[in-house]
């Protein structure tokens, strides 16, 4: 089994899921609580990665990160080296790829909150920030956990995007799914099977945590 590829994938998924949570929380708050009429447009953009082939996301990410792309240029001027075919490039592309998996559970859990509880917080003098940290986040934490875990698992399994923007550089961009592909190409089915099975188990455990936690929490608070 290629441990280097596995650890690279785990590092990538952890980085992406934490960054995504930070980005997705304010966006999900806006989507759940604003009454802006055009918000369906934002919702569509957020959901795009669900329907687009990963190669399309990867293609545009590659173009944007290339030496002439906007992201690539900014990165080059800030850090003095190109973005494409680096670990950072993988992170950036994966942020787009897994975005809906972070945003949608958060929106769903925010929208499920009893509005009267948020009203009560405002009446009792709490501003938006206090209401968010003292009431919304604690009550929506199953959604937060779901967002973290789903974006982690989804990033762990990505293939097309990585192939497009990362290539196949051992220790830098060769993730576990690329590794499996390489093994199969080389007809080393035993090694491919080992890694594939591990990925399968990780995904199963992760999803069990999500569903288990959600069931327990909803039954605790919603049936009062």
């Amino acid at each position, binding site marked *: 089994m290629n441990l280097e590829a596995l650890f690279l994938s785990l590092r990538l998924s952890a980085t992406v899921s934490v960054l995504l949570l930070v980005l997705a929380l304010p966006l999900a708050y806006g989507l759940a609580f604003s009454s802006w009429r055009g918000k369906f447009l934002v919702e569509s953009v957020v959901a795009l990665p669900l329907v687009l082939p990963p190669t399309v996301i990867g293609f545009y990410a590659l173009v944007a990160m290339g030496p002439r792309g906007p992201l690539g240029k900014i990165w080059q001027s800030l850090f003095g080296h190109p973005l494409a075919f680096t670990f950072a490039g993988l992170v950036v592309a994966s942020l787009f790829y897994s975005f809906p998996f972070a945003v949608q559970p958060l929106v769903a859990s925010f929208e499920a909150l009893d509005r009267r509880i948020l009203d009560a917080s405002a009446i009792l003098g709490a501003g938006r920030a206090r209401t968010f940290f003292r009431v919304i986040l604690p009550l929506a934490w199953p959604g937060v956990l779901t967002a973290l875990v789903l974006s982690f698992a989804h990033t762990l399994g990505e293939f097309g995007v990585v192939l497009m923007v990362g290539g196949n550089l051992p220790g830098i961009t060769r993730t576990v799914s690329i590794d499996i592909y390489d093994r199969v190409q080389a007809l080393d089915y035993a090694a491919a099977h080992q890694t594939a099975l591990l990925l399968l188990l990780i995904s199963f455990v992760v999803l069990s945590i999500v569903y288990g936690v959600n069931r327990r929490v909803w039954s605790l*608070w919603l049936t009062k």
Partner: protein
Amino acid sequence: MSRAMLAVQIRKKFRASGAAPFVLDVAASFEPGFTVLFGPSGAGKSTLLDCIAGLQQPDSGKISLGEEVLFDAADGISLPPQRRDLAYVFQSLALFPHLSVEQNIRYGLAKLPAAEQQKRITRIAAAFRIENLLARRPAELSGGEKQRVALARALVTRPRVLLLDEPLTGLDASLRRAILDDLCAWDDANRIPILYVTHNREEVDAIGESVVTIVNGRVQETGAPREVLDAPRSVELAQAAGFENVLRAKVMEHRPADGVMRVGLEDAACEIEIPFGDAAPGSEVRVAIRAGDILLSTEAPHFLSARNILPGVIESLETRGTLVALRVKAGATFQVHVTPSAVRSLGLAPGQVVWLIVKTHSCHLVR
């Protein structure tokens, strides 16, 4: 403690799909002490409280508390709920489920020093008898305990106005009575305007210093509970106020010297005498009679002061808890409430001939 009066004059239109838009159009002022907002459900009572609290924006008008303007559409003023210094207890109570009772109560005291917070929590917990519940979560409380905690959480902030949206629904009468007593005691000590939404007649009688009736988004009447609710001015209100019998009637004859008039009920099926009211002979009106205000006799009564004695036949009996609801056909069909023991001792049964006895002043003219 401020003794400011709350003055409200607002209008808000709601787009409804298909039906005509609902318009809330209210002008009223609320003195310190209890004012009951009474009316059928969907009349706009909760929306009115939301507007006062700043949770919804009226389209036009003004809301002020003493000298201070909370909302003024013309001047573009609208204080956010956080700065109105009001308390609001919702029908659902909306306790924070993840916080203990003590943390719930402390939530609105964030700006005060810790010692002052503690002092206030101790005092309010005593006033609402929840000292032994402070460590619990809302899920571990009974219905009545939750209601006490919600009141304590609201009042510990020393609000300038208290808004209560059916806070005691679903409690049995004795529990409701006990909580109301504690609330009244708090009111005696603090005197702020308290707006109390309910459609429970018992609560109105227990607390009402004055009643404002709201029907279809508008204030219909203002006054003492007895005046307003014992002589309802509209059919919706009569039904909300617990008049089981609201009958179509036609004015037959005025007898101003006796202070009464005679009306025919339900296409002249029978005739009764009601107090003199503002309705010309020949005009169509409605008469409201409480089912509990009708007496029932199994023999033709004599030597009674009551003016309305109607022979009829029992159509059905239905036991509802501690009362029996009878339908009696006496020309028109009347709902009559009696006790189970009356049913036993008189041997009441369907098909039996009875006489209904209704005092003139138990009949209320409704327009």
